[in-house]
């Protein structure tokens, strides 16, 4: 998972969990059904135009609002490979790590001039995000957090190590 390459879809600031996954679908519990509504509140056509391996790039406070884990489940199960954002809301960030969705904070992402469809390359270990408009560096995730994400979430690690998985 060291290098992620994919098409970039851009979103603005304060993309809340209702935009990632509208509240009217919260009673759904099957992950495939949840995946069908990915980003529907922000862009109803997103689910039909995105492909597995695409990257979401957003502004500040991505994932603000409700604590719903559906927001991460829908992104992960629809095949979004990573979310890069200038900043994340903290509950969303925790949920993403727990479920193994790659989330990377890049504070100066905003002036990269990203456009939908750009090819992006995320070097997770070196901490570099490159796109046609240039590249930005970021502080790589701590090794134990990366290990959780690489394992697809905390489930297997937790079964093996209990709460020790959190470092």
């Amino acid at each position, binding site marked *: 998972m060291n290098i992620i390459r994919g098409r970039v879809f851009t979103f603005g600031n304060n993309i809340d969990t*209702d935009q990632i996954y509208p509240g009217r679908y919260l*009673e759904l*519990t099957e992950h495939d059904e949840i995946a069908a509504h990915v980003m529907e*509140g922000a862009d109803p056509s997103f689910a039909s135009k995105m492909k597995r391996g695409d990257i979401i790039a957003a502004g500040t406070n991505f994932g603000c609002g409700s604590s719903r884990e559906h927001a991460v489940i829908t992104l992960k199960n629809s095949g979004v490979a990573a979310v890069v954002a200038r900043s994340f809301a903290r509950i969303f960030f*925790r949920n993403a790590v727990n479920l193994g969705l790659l989330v990377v904070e890049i504070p100066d992402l905003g002036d990269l001039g990203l456009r939908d469809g750009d090819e992006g390359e995320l070097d997770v270990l070196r901490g570099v995000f490159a796109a046609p408009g240039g590249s930005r560096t970021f502080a790589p995730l701590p090794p134990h957090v990366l290990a959780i994400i690489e394992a697809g979430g905390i489930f297997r690690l937790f079964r093996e190590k209990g709460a020790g998985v959190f470092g």
Partner: protein
Amino acid sequence: MHALEKTLARASGKTQVSAGEIVLAEVDLAEVNDLYLQVIKSFRELGGEKVRHPEKTSFVFDHYSPAPTIKAADNHKKMREFCAGQGIPHLFDIGEGVCHQVLTESGMVGPGTIVVETDSHTTTMGALGAFGTGVGATDMATILITGKLWFKVPRVMNIVFEGTPPKGVMAKDMILHAIGDLRQDAAIYKAVEFSGGAVREMAQEERFVLCNMAVEMGAKAAFIAPDGTTLEYLSRYGWKGGEIPATDPGYEYDSVVRYDVSSLTPRVALPGSVDAVSAIPGEKITVDQVFLGTCTGGRLNDIRTAAEILAGKRVAPGTRFVVIPASRRIFQDALLAGYIETLVNAGAVLSTPGCGPCLGAHEGILAPGETCVTTSSRNFPGRMGSTEADIYIASPATAAATALMGRLCGADSL
């Protein structure tokens, strides 16, 4: 140390913690609401068999209460079975109210306790001097298995409200004013303490509103230093007492922001964003539905405010006024006080204590093109139904005045 740091230190068996440190803390009370069957799925997937502390665990059915669909009913059924099988004593079934209000009335939350719920508005608990924070389903499942959760000790920002607010200006107006000024990402990864003369003079019910809405600035937790008002509330609901952590003199806040509320006027958050805050717009805005309720607008004080404005009057023709008490206890108190009769006579529609239409699940969903004024906390596009509906967030006084006039207006203009 700050009182919240002392709380985290105590719960993680340390004498000292500081901001940025990661601690593994014992959770005093965990709560799962009915959006979160995923908690039980994650519990099993993590290898969970037995809940570590059933007596410190609760379930509250509030978001889909009573169940509006077969799927929601089935989720409730599976949760009831889980509680019965695990010996979890605190199952608050349909109609008991919104989880945060139910817990503050439970006698299980007080100064220095650590409360974790599957809901972002758990910051409400800070008004009782507790450390309250929201998590997702999988974090909650790890609490059920281990009794613990890891936290990064937050820095604390201090919002000071000074002065006496004019009549008709409520805690909701103050916090909207602050969110509009500081914006919705001002407190990410931080805790927010509210202090100042206006907070000291504030009823406990209003203090919950400040702490509840702190999450709309991104806050991890909120805090108001417990005082006589807090202790009076706690003793009414059976809190058994305990050590009350206090912030050390000289504690250095991340930042301090001061507002003088003595000339504040009613505020609204304009459709689409909680931080697009303004005075009530001058142009006429016709309103299809007014919603008074939720964990940040459905307490007894809120219902009394509406009853006083609507006593002997009628809700405007063409406007629907949905009223939902935040808990059964509040519903009972409002019935006894005659507020419910006043509101029903005025044309209000009452529904079951719980979240109501706040998250667009049931009991008053909006159609495309409709306009709603709500005392709840969020107005993201589509939050209460159609993405083409306009949602204004306002205080209970403004909501009641709007229901009376059929157009967005403050109680100060009646």
